[in-house]
């Protein structure tokens, strides 16, 4: 297990985190949820920026507090609103990175920067949002990391830039012993990358599912009031009142497809599932 959180608790004014999750080796795991749900808090706990009041956070099998510098070098980090000082440029960063990470690959890093059209002499704060985002990822990928912790790496990017970054991550995963823990608002990106995901809302994990199962077995039923009355609600997870009746989320769409052939059923996309899990009523 590359990352393991067991009953990690943390309180702030008006907010309480209580979370357990795992990232196995060779896996791309997503942490999804609305703003303020606790994604950043969870990431901070994993990176040792905050200290949980209860529970255990382990990375590479060790409590975070006991990690050595060498072990920490194996983690590549992208934080959504924090990076090296914006007054530095890529040329400045190269010797800095070389001394921070013993396995920093200078030539490869510079080549990839050039390939993405990142100007080496421009200060980071003068780069466009897209370029800055790509730079952050290239930095995280530049030192042979075994684990990537990415907090909203694609925020504020257009579709093309997002796809480029996702492809970089797919390529990163090809040797089978690496893992990624990624958080994002744009869940649809993750359908094409992540193996499983955790949904967090108001500090607790409300759902953990494999992408494959979600896309394959989850479905959104759209029924009228009448249809709802005769429905077997045993396999319904959430219900939402609509103008036409109800939207229902199920994790066994095959059951309803077989037993109610005429029914309106939509495939569950990650976005829809999230919305229903968070906003819908529990059944």
């Amino acid at each position, binding site marked *: 297990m590359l990352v393991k959180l067991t009953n990690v608790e943390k309180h702030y004014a008006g907010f309480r985190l209580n979370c357990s999750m795992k990232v196995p080796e060779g896996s791309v795991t997503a942490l999804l949820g609305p703003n303020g749900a606790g994604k950043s808090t969870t990431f*901070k706990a994993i*990176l*040792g920026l905050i200290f949980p009041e209860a529970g255990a956070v382990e990375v590479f099998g060790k409590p975070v507090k006991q990690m050595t510098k060498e072990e920490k070098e194996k983690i590549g980090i992208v*934080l959504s609103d*924090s990076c090296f000082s914006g007054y530095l440029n890529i040329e400045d960063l190269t010797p800095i990175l070389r001394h*921070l990470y013993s396995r920093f690959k200078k030539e490869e890093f510079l080549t990839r920067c050039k390939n993405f059209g990142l100007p080496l002499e421009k200060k980071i704060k003068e780069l466009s949002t897209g370029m800055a985002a790509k730079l952050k990822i290239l930095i995280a990928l530049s030192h042979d990391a075994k684990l990537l912790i990415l907090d909203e790496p694609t925020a504020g990017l257009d579709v093309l830039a997002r796809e480029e970054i996702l492809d970089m991550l797919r390529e990163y995963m090809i040797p089978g012993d690496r893992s990624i823990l990624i958080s994002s608002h744009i869940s649809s990106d993750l359908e094409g990358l992540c193996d499983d995901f955790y949904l967090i809302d108001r500090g607790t994990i409300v759902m953990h599912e494999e992408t494959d199962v979600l896309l394959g077995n989850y479905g959104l039923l759209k029924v009228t009031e009448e249809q709802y009355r005769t429905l077997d609600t045993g396999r319904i997870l959430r219900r939402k009142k609509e103008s036409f009746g109800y939207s229902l989320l199920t994790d066994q769409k095959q059951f309803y497809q077989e037993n109610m052939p005429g029914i309106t059923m939509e495939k569950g996309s990650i976005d829809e599932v999230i919305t229903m899990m968070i906003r819908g009523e529990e059944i």
Partner: protein
Amino acid sequence: MTGLIIKDWKLLKRQGRYYGIVVALACVLSLSGSQNFSSFITTYLTFMITMFAFSSFNYDDFDNGMLFLMALPSGRHDYVKAKYVFSILLITGGWILGVLLHLTLFTFRFSLADYLEILPSEPVYLLLCLIYIGFAFPLLMKYGAEKGRNLAFIGLGILAAAVYLIAKTGVRLPALLLTFDRLLQTSPLTALVILTAGCILVLWISCLLSMRIMEKKEF
């Protein structure tokens, strides 16, 4: 740790122009002053570069930068060590420049022999500035760049005001200070050794304290 020092250096280099202006200004003022005033250039340059050392904290605080810095493999201890090493090297460098300029300008206006007489007092300014960062850095670590620096200045201000008041009222200076002053005149080497030892002690304790503060801090 080296990586962090390089980062601080690269950031500070961008302010090089300002320090250049400071140096030029100091030279002009020094040239127009009396012989007694000549030490101004050393004290001024050393103090100004100490201020620049403080500003390295501002770059880190800016734009949430500390989150990322603390997440790096170097961690909190290396961050603290890097700040001390960087600042000590920087301030010493600034002091050396001050001394060289002082020597050049002094010899140009007065005489080398006279300069050699005041030479022993030169290191005092360096050591005092280093002792100052010894007191100030833990404040910067605990309260952040802005607030910490303000607290450090207030502390310095209070000290300066106290010294001024004491001098004004003619109250006898504590025996310790008088002894030190006499020692500086009679046996400067001893005085400097004592002051250096004190300086090292203060910096050592300060560094440990800073590390303790950063260990506990959450970001």
